[in-house]
């Protein structure tokens, strides 16, 4: 509805309406920050409606958005700042004040800084959030490079694309053919732009190909399903290159003018035949060739490469091979193809202090997400999330002493939960800041309860084409402090007040809005925010984009000589493979056939779901009722062979651990593969569902995978494996009883 209708609706119901930005998938996060009208009855937040005026969601709201009031009033909300008094993991705390908590954190950081150096502090980040830049800012102000990025999401694609074709061309429009590859266009933001674009493409009659191991609703709406084995996308992409190059379906004019290394690429991909790729990917060679030809010969064709390719040791190879596919077929920055980006207009002031990053900081990265030669990257200097935790155990190259985890759960959101638990136990000082109970809390030294975005009046949300002020919907139910307050308060307590607007939120907001000629007050006066109509596209910007400088210290260009790196001399010089290769995951059907007797099925996990934000929000009844139990998708053939019925509790065992979950007989999955959503641990009190164990016997898929330093990682971009081999067995009555 629009603002006028929202006011009318509220009036008729004796309610008040507040226009604001949805806070359920992390504002500014993957969903993009949808505009909503929040309704308040007698001081209580009761419901929301989608804001027609927002160009992000145009009136729609997803399940999560509608469930927001239950999240805000959940009995799982954190209510008071706490200090640990029991043993680590025991969960014994005493109440302290917010100011006391901030003072204790500051005191510890000061002391550790003088004893061990600034780099002894690391902060873990969840997905990109509207507060991510505050994390980066705090770390630079403190002098630590250890911004802990997941190492498995988005930036891996950005990195490989940018160092291959100078840009990450995520956008496309009016394509006749779209290949959704390892991509979930719906769940990441069901009412946001990718889902809307998917629906629009479908309505327009575009041909849609979906490449992924199982059929989700988007695959149900696609024309062709390419059922690839998890973790084998690089083999598939290399075989597609073999077909396209071998059959000369390439754009020679584009290659001659804008690419370097074609002849070496041509010789290299000769070995990767579709027949070879069939053995690895499980996709019939005929289908591989067909899809490659269809893409190369359709003029207006685009590839939407998703997060699914960022979880395997040959992740960088898969991404580079896809970037190369786009380039050699000339499907770049032309109508209907993947489009190169123009720098956004109407952007607020960047606050990550990246101009203060020094070579010494890069050198001190505890576990670089990308090799040091390529630091900083677009988010600043980054260490891989898991490598930070690992350093605590190995003390190599040095042990991190304090970890601050705002809005992220190391035990379930990251690989290697067993080692993570040991690291949290050993860690000197651990701070958790969140709105609701998280699984890591028993290990925390300080727990800070945060207000949700419905309870505060900041920040502003800026997404391309739209900016809007967050407005306070209700008075804080518990803590009045937001994650933004946390950084301002801690910044001041550390003596970094000059970098943290002397603790003034108003100044923080106004400073960032300054390039737009706005203050927060001005912005708040526009209840539906400000929309900026999209600029008409400019095509074939090769000269400009291919000569862009990289964010590395020294600012060398992404592409030497301004040419697409089919053969990558930059990577070669740094000791990495100049051409994309195939590397097996630590355990796989073709890589470790000796394990198939004991572990005959391939396991991987879903990164997103329709009703939860990663490992968050299992406590919200209206979301939990949609999918109450952790369910393993298993093909009916594989289930029959194991006498498994729908809803049976099953034991899923890999060489690294085991889970107890429910089976869902799922016709839309490869019969050799089983999959489950990640992030399960939290119970839901209102529905009488208890928490699950974090380690063996629970439903946390992250205990199932290898974290072997030699096998589990992509060598260039971290990307840790989320593939292993498993056996699935029906649990006996007493074992399976809840």
């Amino acid at each position: 509805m629009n603002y006028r209708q929202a006011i009318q609706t509220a009036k008729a119901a004796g309610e008040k309406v507040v226009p604001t930005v949805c806070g359920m998938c992390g504002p500014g996060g993957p969903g993009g920050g949808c505009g909503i009208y929040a309704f308040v009855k007698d001081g209580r937040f009761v419901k929301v409606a989608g804001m027609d005026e927002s160009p992000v969601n145009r009136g729609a709201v997803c399940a999560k958005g509608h469930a927001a009031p239950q999240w805000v009033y959940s009995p799982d909300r954190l209510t008071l700042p706490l200090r640990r008094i029991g043993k680590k993991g025991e969960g014994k705390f005493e109440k302290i004040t917010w100011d006391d908590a901030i003072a204790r954190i500051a005191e510890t950081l000061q002391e550790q800084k003088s004893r061990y150096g600034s780099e002894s502090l690391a902060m873990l980040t969840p997905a990109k959030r509207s507060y991510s830049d505050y994390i980066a800012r705090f770390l630079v102000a403190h002098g630590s490079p250890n911004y802990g990025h997941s190492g498995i999401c988005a930036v891996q694609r950005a990195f490989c694309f940018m160092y291959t074709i100078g840009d990450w061309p995520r956008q496309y429009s009016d394509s006749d053919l779209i290949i959704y590859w390892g991509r979930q266009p719906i769940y990441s933001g069901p009412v946001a732009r990718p889902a809307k674009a998917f629906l629009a493409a479908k309505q327009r009659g575009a041909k849609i190909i979906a490449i992924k191991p199982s059929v989700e609703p988007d695959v149900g709406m696609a024309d062709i399903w390419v059922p690839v084995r998890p973790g084998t996308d690089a083999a598939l992409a290399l075989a597609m290159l073999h077909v396209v190059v071998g059959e000369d379906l390439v754009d020679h004019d584009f290659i001659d003018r804008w690419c370097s290394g074609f002849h070496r690429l041509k010789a290299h991909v000769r070995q990767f035949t579709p027949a070879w790729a069939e053995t690895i990917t499980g996709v019939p060679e005929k289908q591989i060739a067909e899809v490659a030809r269809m893409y190369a010969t359709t003029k207006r064709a685009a590839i939407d490469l998703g997060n699914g390719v960022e979880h395997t040791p040959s992740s960088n190879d898969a991404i580079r091979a896809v970037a190369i596919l786009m380039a050699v077929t000339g499907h770049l920055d032309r109508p209907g193809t993947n489009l190169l980006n123009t720098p956004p207009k109407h952007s607020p002031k960047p606050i990550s202090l990246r101009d203060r990053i020094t070579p010494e900081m890069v050198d001190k990265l505890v576990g670089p997400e990308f090799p040091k030669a390529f630091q900083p990257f677009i988010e600043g200097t980054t260490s891989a999330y898991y490598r930070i935790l690992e350093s605590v155990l190995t003390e190599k190259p040095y042990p991190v002493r304090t970890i601050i985890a705002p809005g992220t759960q190391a035990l379930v959101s990251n690989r290697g939960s067993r080692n993570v638990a040991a690291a949290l136990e050993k860690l000197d000082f651990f701070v958790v800041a969140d709105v609701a109970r998280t699984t890591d809390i028993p290990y925390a030294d300080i727990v800070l309860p945060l207000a949700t975005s419905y309870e505060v009046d900041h920040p502003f949300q800026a997404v391309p084409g739209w900016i809007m002020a967050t407005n306070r919907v209700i008075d804080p139910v518990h803590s009045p402090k937001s994650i933004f307050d946390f950084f301002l308060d801690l910044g001041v307590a550390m003596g970094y007040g000059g970098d943290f607007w002397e603790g003034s939120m108003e100044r923080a907001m106004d400073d960032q809005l300054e390039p737009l000629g706005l203050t927060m007050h001005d912005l708040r006066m526009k209840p539906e925010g400000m929309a900026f109509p999209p600029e008409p596209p400019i095509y074939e910007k090769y000269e400009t984009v291919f000569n862009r400088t990289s964010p590395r210290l020294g600012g060398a260009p992404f592409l030497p000589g301004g040419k697409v790196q089919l053969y990558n001399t930059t990577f070669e010089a740094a000791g990495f493979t100049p051409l994309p290769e195939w590397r097996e995951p630590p355990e796989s059907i073709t890589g470790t056939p000796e394990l198939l007797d004991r572990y005959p099925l391939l396991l991987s996990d879903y990164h997103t779901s329709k009703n939860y934000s990663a490992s968050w929000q299992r406590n919200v009844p209206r979301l939990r009722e949609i999918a109450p139990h952790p369910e393993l998708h298993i093909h009916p053939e594989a289930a029959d062979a194991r006498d498994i019925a729908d809803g049976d509790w099953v034991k899923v065992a890999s060489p690294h651990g085991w889970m107890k979950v429910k089976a869902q007989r799922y016709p839309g999955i490869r019969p050799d593969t089983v999959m489950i959503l990640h992030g399960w641990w939290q119970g839901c009190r209102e529905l009488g569902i208890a928490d699950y164990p974090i380690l063996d016997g629970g439903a946390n898929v992250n205990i199932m995978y290898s974290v072997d330093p030699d096998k589990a990682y992509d060598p260039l971009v971290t990307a840790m494996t989320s593939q292993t081999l498993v056996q699935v067995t029906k649990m006996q009555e007493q074992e399976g009883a809840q």
Partner: protein
Amino acid sequence: MSKGPMRTEWMIWFDHEKCTQCHGCEVACRTWRGLDHGVWFRRVGNVWRGGYPQVKSHSVSLGCLHCVAPGCAAVCPEEAISKRESDGRVTVDRELCTGCGACLDACPYGVPQFGPAGIMEKCDLCQDQPGQEFGPPCVATCPGDALSLRAVKIREKAAHQKSMLAWMASAGG
């Protein structure tokens, strides 16, 4: 409204080609109507057709269809369920309902719900709700316009009922 075959009735129409199974409609309905745990006026489901690798999944979002000839009303011993002549809406008088469950047995779509009070409740097209002039929340929140509030001819509604039954019958896997 005119009588006979040209008569129109209201309903929430579902177009499965436009549904992404986001479940927004389900939760919008439950929040706006304040429904109890376990009570659903609308449910989103998945229907499988075919076998691997030609398998297809299809989406269904199902609430009360306000049937042309509602089986629920026909069997209700208390005459608590009635169909309004003027707009075809099927409503339940919760004062008269005893919660016997006969309507649930009679409904081929499994629509009737019995919350903690044990009295039947279901979708009423939100016609008496504040803001109803801007459409039911399930319809308003749909990102693909898969749901729409429509006045349709009886023949069309009967055909839609039949097609929804066919979708449900093919479910399983």
